[in-house]
């Protein structure tokens, strides 16, 4: 029962080939090792008692009744483990005076958001634990809760009263101060008198990562070491932070990420649940498993996005952009997550996009609220920034009555200008926006769809067509350690690889990255196969276990290939260098006289040679090594990039909008991404497809909503509406290639691209369809109800408190310009009749 791969016999280099994945065999046959599948002798089960209140003091916790319930071993409260439970840490305090409230895994005196753990029930079965959790009686004193980020900034109600403010940090990037550009206020003032100033406020709604595998943790404290299996993206960071916050010796902790069912940033965290399970297992001295329900996952796994974005864009009269000022409020929720405070900071270098601004300023205020904590979600800071700049570039085009692609082309960096120093202080390595855009237009039939759009407008078709553009860039490859250090980040950004040449000719590649669906086992095999000249099939990629892969910084931020893949290259090159010395001795030649190609060392000008796997066998026996030579050709390498890589792309989206119902339908979506050298086109396309749908889902369907009490209303998949196969379409995708200059493979990273680019493309398309009605924004998610309401209140800006924004194309004769009477059936009917 093996998967067959007819492509495996094709000749030529592995890198660039659509290899079918090595990972698939076990996944399609159900032979998986999800954490929840793990069963250990004597294993007990935990259930969490969680706060139903967004903000409350804990007066008392009554556990006796629960402890008498059948099968219950114990109930653990925060007070029981106050000296050993550790803490949920922040790795990135973005300023030295950042307010970072203590985040205990099991709350002791106070809860600051609904879903916080207040006690852990340990029982023989999961069902018994959950039954008994209902019997734990917690006496809460409810406190006023603050939920909204913008309201929180006013400090009327405090999320953490002892901090005295809701503002966690204020962070700023200014091109004049940093010497990377001009003075933003001067440029804006100039444009106010003799140019164009566009001011907008956009809302990045709160999202929930919604990986398909609920988080699960098994802790076995019975051995000499404590072993933690957990559904995480970051086993290495977790091991470090368990040691750093509990006082356990790092060498006594082994963390294993077995099969992990998706993450999207949602598992880039050391969680309260992991620490609570660890505390419970250590207390009872037996293995304990905790697996969350989906409802628990949605309220207690961290959320993403949630920003208010205020933008001021200045341009000259011909549409050449001059300045961009960004004022951002980012809602961090109740606590500052692992990289939660820093996530919006990552947007600081991205709001300027691919455009040549003279002056730029980014002002960020992070605020604490009594909501689920917010941290990285696919793209992490970059989708938010890309959305804002790509939306406002469309507004500039509308202001000038120009095609949005023309306005972009007038302002973007041309391919001759790379490497390009951006106004935000980043150096873009390579790119060709012209090529990607030309290819996208061709695939999309841009001119044809524009014609159809005009025809529909002319005949006042109730179903209008909108075309959305997104010409995005992003920064990938987190990250240069030196840069992270300058940003006060608590770790480095290097990645590690080891290669072990086994005597049987097989090769083990050990990587510090920790994949959870990305296909590293396949891609890393391709890289190593080319470098070592050994068959793809003979390579085994090992990862996700701190005992097997002791050095690593894990998988997030589109870093694995760019940083971790390059580490594999360097380790392989070291193996070849070591093997060359052994080969030279065996061939009785000088090392300088040897060539290495296709896995074989040959003596120049002769037919003498030896394979690298034969060398591996020879060093295993070590019967015939040169005098004084150390046995072994295995090698380690650590790669730390000098700078980020900057993938980019042009995405085009056509949306049909029914002006009578507010319903929307995607007609066509084209994504042309330039991600540098592609290792495996099949995997790359898959990453793009999945990213697209997550970004489209933000535009159209998903939003985490709390009621006034701070209860998550979208607390199950009934209400948090992930897209299904029936909601989506097949995509047209392609690549252009500008190799990165930051690593020898020329790769840039693709994991987040689709998700970053697609959201503004979709919203731009919807707004484009409605612009003749005087509509310049629809707040996400653009549900039929919101689109319909925008149409009903057409003429007023749908974006709420958006200032400025003349509407030169506002057509007085256009339909649906009744007064703003959302919900008025008569008005709706009237609109529909026209």
């Amino acid at each position, binding site marked *: 029962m093996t998967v067959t791969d007819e492509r495996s016999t094709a000749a030529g280099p592995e890198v660039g080939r659509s290899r079918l994945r090595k990972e698939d065999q076990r996944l399609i046959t159900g032979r*998986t090792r999800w954490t*929840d599948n793990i069963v250990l002798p004597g294993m007990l089960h935990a259930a969490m008692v969680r706060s139903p209140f967004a903000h409350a003091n804990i007066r008392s916790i009554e556990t006796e009744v629960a402890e008498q319930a059948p099968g219950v071993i114990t109930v653990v409260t925060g007070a029981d483990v106050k000296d050993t439970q550790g803490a949920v840490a922040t790795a990135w305090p973005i300023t030295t005076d950042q307010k970072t409230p203590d985040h205990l895994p099991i709350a002791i005196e106070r809860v600051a958001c609904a879903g916080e753990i207040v006690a852990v029930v340990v029982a023989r079965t999961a069902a018994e634990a959950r039954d008994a959790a209902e019997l734990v009686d917690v006496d809460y004193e409810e406190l006023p809760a603050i939920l909204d980020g913008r309201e929180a900034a006013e400090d009327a109600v405090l999320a953490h009263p002892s901090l005295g403010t809701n503002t966690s940090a204020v962070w700023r990037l200014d091109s004049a101060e940093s010497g990377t550009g001009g003075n933003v206020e001067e440029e804006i003032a100039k444009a106010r008198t003799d140019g164009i100033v566009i001011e907008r406020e956009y809302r990045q709604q709160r999202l929930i990562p919604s990986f*398909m595998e609920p988080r699960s943790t098994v802790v076995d404290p019975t051995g000499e070491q404590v072993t933690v299996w957990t559904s995480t993206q970051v086993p290495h960071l977790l091991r470090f932070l368990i040691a750093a916050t509990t006082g356990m010796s790092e060498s006594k902790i082994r963390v294993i990420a077995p099969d992990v069912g998706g993450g*999207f940033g949602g598992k880039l965290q050391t969680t309260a649940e992991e620490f609570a399970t660890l505390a419970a297992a250590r207390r009872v001295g037996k293995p304990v498993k905790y697996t969350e329900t989906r409802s628990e996952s949605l309220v207690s796994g961290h959320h993403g996005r949630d920003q208010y974005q205020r933008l001021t864009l200045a341009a000259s009269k011909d549409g050449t952009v001059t300045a961009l000022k960004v004022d951002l409020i980012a809602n961090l929720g109740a606590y500052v997550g692992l990289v939660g405070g820093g996530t919006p900071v990552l947007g600081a270098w991205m709001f300027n996009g691919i455009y040549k601004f003279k002056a730029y300023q980014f002002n960020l205020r992070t605020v604490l609220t009594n909501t689920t904590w917010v941290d990285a979600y696919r793209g992490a800071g970059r989708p938010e920034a890309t959305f804002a700049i790509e939306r406002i570039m469309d507004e500039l085009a509308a202001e000038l009555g120009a095609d949005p692609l023309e306005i972009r082309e007038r302002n973007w960096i041309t391919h001759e200008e790379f490497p390009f120093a951006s106004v935000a202080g980043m150096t873009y390595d390579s790119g060709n926006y012209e090529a990607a855009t030309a290819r996208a237009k061709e695939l999309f039939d841009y001119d044809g769809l524009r014609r159809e759009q005009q025809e529909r407008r002319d005949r006042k078709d109730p179903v209008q067509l909108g075309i959305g553009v997104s010409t995005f860039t992003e920064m990938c490859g987190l990250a240069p350690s030196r840069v992270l250090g300058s940003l006060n980040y608590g770790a480095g950004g290097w990645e590690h690889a080891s290669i072990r040449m086994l005597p049987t000719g097989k090769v083990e590649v050990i990587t510090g990255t920790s994949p959870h669906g990305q296909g590293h086992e396949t891609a890393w095999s391709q890289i190593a196969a080319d470098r070592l000249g050994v068959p793809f099939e003979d390579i085994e990629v090992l990862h996700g276990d701190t005992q097997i892969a002791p050095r690593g910084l894990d998988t997030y931020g589109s870093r694995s290939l760019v940083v971790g893949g390059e580490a594999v290259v360097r380790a392989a090159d070291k193996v070849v260098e070591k093997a060359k010395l052994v080969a030279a001795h065996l061939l009785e030649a000088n090392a300088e006289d040897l060539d290495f190609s296709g896995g074989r060392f040959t003596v120049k000008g002769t037919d003498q040679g030896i394979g690298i796997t034969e060398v591996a066998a020879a060093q295993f026996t070590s019967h015939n090594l040169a005098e004084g030579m150390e046995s072994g050709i295995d090698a380690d390498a650590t790669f730390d990039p000098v700078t980020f890589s900057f993938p980019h792309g042009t995405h085009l989206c056509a949306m049909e909008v029914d002006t009578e119902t507010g319903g929307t339908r995607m007609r066509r979506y084209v994504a042309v991404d330039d991600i540098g050298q592609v290792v495996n086109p099949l995997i790359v396309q*898959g990453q793009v*497809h999945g990213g697209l749908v*997550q970004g489209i889902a933000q535009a159209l369907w998903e939003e985490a909503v709390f009621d006034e009490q701070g209860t998550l209303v979208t607390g199950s998949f009934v209400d948090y509406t992930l897209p299904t196969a029936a909601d989506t379409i097949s995509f047209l995708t392609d690549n252009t290639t500008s190799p990165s200059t930051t690593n020898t493979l020329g790769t840039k990273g693709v994991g987040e691209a689709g998700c970053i680019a697609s959201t503004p493309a979709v919203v731009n398309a919807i707004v484009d369809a409605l612009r003749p009605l005087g509509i310049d924004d629809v707040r996400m998610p653009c549900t039929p109800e919101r689109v319909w309401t925008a149409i009903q209140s057409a003429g007023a800006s749908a974006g709420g408190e958006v200032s400025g924004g003349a509407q030169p194309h506002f057509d007085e004769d256009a339909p649906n310009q009744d007064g703003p009477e959302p919900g008025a059936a008569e008005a709706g009917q009237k609109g529909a009749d026209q």
Partner: protein
Amino acid sequence: MTRINVRVDGVTYTDEVEPRTLLVHYLREQLGKTGTVVGCDTSNCGACTVHLDGRSVKSCNVLALQADGHEVTTIEGLATDGRLHPMQQAFHECHALQCGYCTPGMIMQAIDVLNENPKPSEQEIREGLEGNLCRCTGYHNIVKAVQQVAGTGEGERA
């Protein structure tokens, strides 16, 4: 506790179950059929989809008791004589999975879609899979895999 007789992946089991036990928990916890997974608690995600007497069901939505006297096929019983089911092979060839968590349920449902309608249109495939959530693939390659098995793939427009 109640006694049930169930045939799962070709093996007959007689077991005592609590009346409230869901079929998926019986499969996972009592039979060790961990290939079938749980993804939600509201019957939305379809990760736990199995076949009950040849028709797809969400096994979180069926009591173990209701399977008494019936035949269950899980992802683990799909390959026969060491050979993958064509739908498993197509998921592999079309890169229709990434993390793989939804895959068992998605494959079981995809087979059911074709049992119902051997030559579905793309839209019919999409509607047939509507009850199964995937967060990784954007469904693009899953639809392609089903088309490949049905022999209705139109290839990518380009």
